[in-house]
């Protein structure tokens, strides 16, 4: 695991930018709603994350934190 990705679910607005941006394609919308009625993004295979931070870069809500290990 090269990086830890933390998603602040309450902030996510389901724009999908991070999903699109992730070179590893390891982000997807959850099947539940957050308090604002959006499906927050979740990370499917944390171990594959390269820590490239592109998800962080494109997230309009700053809902993603990436900690390179």
């Amino acid at each position, binding site marked *: 695991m090269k990086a830890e990705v933390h998603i602040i679910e309450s902030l996510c607005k389901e724009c999908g*930018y991070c999903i699109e941006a992730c070179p590893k394609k390891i982000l997807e919308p959850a099947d539940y709603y957050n308090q604002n009625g959006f499906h927050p993004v979740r990370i499917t295979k944390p171990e594959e994350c390269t820590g490239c931070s*592109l998800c962080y870069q494109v997230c*309009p809500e700053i809902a993603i934190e*990436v900690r390179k290990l």
Partner: protein
Amino acid sequence: MKVFKKPLSMTPIPMRYCPGCGHGIIHRLIAEVIDEFDIRERTVGISPVGCSVFIDEYFDCDMIQTAHGRAPAVATGMKRSIPNLVVFSYQGDGDLAAIGTAETVHAATRSENFTTIFVNNAIYGMTGGQQAPTTMPTQKTTTTPFGREVKIHGYPIKVCEMLAPLDGPIYLERVTVHKASGVLKAKRAIKKGFQSQLDGLGFSLIEILSPCPTGWGLTCKKACEYVDEVMIPYYPLGVYKDLTQK
């Protein structure tokens, strides 16, 4: 160990933009630059009237909200009063390129020493999606319901191109935040704009193409495609003026 998270120059308040709105990304970039220069304590941000009118909630520095279009005049009053302040004005296309045209042109030509972040989303977001001066030909808005017809509604204004021939501006660049590579370049441009101010060089403006899925009536994904396929060909990215090396 590098950590990517909300910059220190932002408050913890969640932003109230629509899903996929470019404003949030741009805010973060500015805040990162402020953090990197460590100038939060001498920075004043100017909020416009537009969707970003609430940025005084998001930036953790002194903030002043101004009349629609008049941020450049306000910035002028501030920088002339306290030259050591770092002042950035944050303006939409309606704010900067319609009602604020004169203030923009003249702050530029006076080469006022502040940094303008110009968010071009080709629409009046806040008021509900009316035509902006930068609205694309044929684009439908709530005041061009049949699409912008250039012969009737005029041509989109190319702000960087228009300001470049003036002698005042020091640095003009157009960037985008609709994709990751654009975001990184946008950050560099913003940083350069602030650097130019810190160096006392004069007027800088960074035009940022920014998706407005709501105003455009598109999904977030389509909105990004729209930037790529429609906006960028009309508003080519790049540096329009750079006297920072002089």
